[in-house]
C-alpha cells in the first residue's frame, strides 16, 4: 500500500500525461471543432497565447473531452468499481452527442483511464480516491494558473508531434 500523500502527485502526473496524449491523438488542437472553442482560441491568441493551444483549451471547455473521461473514470471507479465505469461510458457517450461533438475522445478517455486505474489500484496499491484529487490538480495546472503560458506550451508540443 502507498500512502495517500505520496499517491496524489503520481496520480496527477499520470492524469496530465494521459489526457494530453489522448487529446493530441484525436487532433483536437488542429481546429476549433465547436463554435465556442473557435472563439476562445482566437481570444487567447489575441492576448499573447498560441492559436493551436488555444483551440485545444477551447475544446476542453466547450465539449466533453478526454479530461472529462479521466475524472469520471476516477469518480465512478471510486464509487462502484468496474460496473461504475460501464455506467460512465454510456453517460459520457450520450453527453458528448448532446454537445454536438463528433469524435470519440470522451469515451476513449474513460476506457484508457479505467484500465490504468484498475491496474494501479489492484496491483500497486493506490487508493482510488487519489485519482480524483490527481485529476483535479492536473486540470488546474492546465487551465487554472495561466491559460496564456499553458496554450504556448501545448502549441509547442503539438507542432513537435505533427
Amino acid at each position: 500500500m502507498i500512502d495517500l500523500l505520496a499517491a496524489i502527485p503520481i496520480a496527477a502526473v499520470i492524469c496530465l500525461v494521459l489526457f494530453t496524449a489522448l487529446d493530441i491523438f484525436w487532433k483536437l488542437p488542429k481546429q476549433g471543432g465547436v463554435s465556442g472553442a473557435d472563439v476562445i482560441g482566437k481570444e487567447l491568441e489575441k492576448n499573447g497565447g498560441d492559436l493551436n493551444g488555444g483551440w485545444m483549451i477551447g475544446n476542453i471547455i466547450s465539449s466533453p473531452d478526454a479530461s472529462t473521461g479521466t475524472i469520471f473514470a476516477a469518480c465512478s471507479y471510486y464509487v462502484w468499481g468496474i460496473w461504475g465505469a460501464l455506467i460512465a461510458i454510456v453517460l459520457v457517450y450520450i453527453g458528448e452527442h448532446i454537445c454536438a461533438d463528433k469524435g470519440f475522445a470522451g469515451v476513449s478517455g474513460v476506457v484508457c483511464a479505467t484500465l490504468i486505474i484498475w491496474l494501479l489500484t489492484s496491483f500497486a496499491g493506490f487508493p482510488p480516491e487519489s485519482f480524483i484529487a490527481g485529476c483535479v490538480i492536473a486540470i488546474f495546472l492546465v487551465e487554472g494558473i495561466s491559460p496564456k503560458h499553458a496554450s504556448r506550451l501545448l502549441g509547442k508540443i503539438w507542432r513537435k508531434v505533427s
Partner: protein
Amino acid sequence: MIVEGICVVIAAYCAIRAVFEPKTLKKLPYLNVMNFAVAGAIVLLMPYPITIGAAIAYFIGSTLESNAIASTFARLEEQ
C-alpha cells in the same frame, strides 16, 4: 480529508478568480476548473451509484452553458 481539502481549495480559488477577471471570454477557463472540482466534490459527498449520474449531468449541463455563452458573445461582438 486531504482529497476533500484539495477539491474545496481549488474550487474556491477558481470561483474568486473567475469573478475578478475583467474580460468575459477569459472567465470561462476558471469556471471550467471550478466545475471539475465541484463534480469531484459531489461524488465525494455521497458514494452511491446514482451519484455518478448526478455528477455527469451537472458537468454536461455546465459545459453546454459555457459553449452557448461563448458562441453568443462572439456573434454579438461581430455585429
